[in-house]
């Protein structure tokens, strides 16, 4: 595997994981807000 390709793959994995983490955080926030609204 060339160095160029390795860098691209590393970047892709990092960006995918950080996007997933952001989405998870967003889901958690929405989940808590919805749960709070449902509890009332």
């Amino acid at each position, binding site marked *: 595997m060339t160095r160029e390709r390795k860098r691209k793959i590393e*970047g892709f994995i*990092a*960006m995918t994981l950080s996007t997933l983490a952001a989405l998870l955080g967003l889901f958690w926030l929405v989940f808590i807000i919805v749960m709070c609204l449902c509890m009332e």
Partner: protein
Amino acid sequence: MGIDILTASIILSIMIIPFTASISRDSFNLTPAIVKESAYAIGATKWEVVKNVVIPYSKIGVFGGIVLSLGRAIGETMAVAFVLGITTGLQTSLLDAATTITVTLANEFAEADNDIYLSSLFYLALVLFVMSFITLAIAKFFLIKAERKFAR
């Protein structure tokens, strides 16, 4: 039961995320655009720019933000009071009920009926004040250091 140190820790860590995130974001934004653009210009990917340019540049600011949030977490009272249980003494397990200085103050101030009790609570408040002061001073030190670095 869920009334223990672990629950309180999780709640506090979630509570300080927005504070840490906003300070870190400000810190990341202080990275000069020309440095980032130069990195892109020599062919760095987005991740490489974040890892090798933005994070090293703003690491002191992020660290200052984390310590500042720690200071806030130490001073937090009511959220902890509800989930920590009130048990004085040193606990060895994360799943034991415990108490913090702020929770003790909030709970026991009304029932302090003699002078030594009241004085002890005031002394506890002094200890808390000194702890918070030191934490915030460290955070401010890092943030000032970061600002000076960016100003250059």
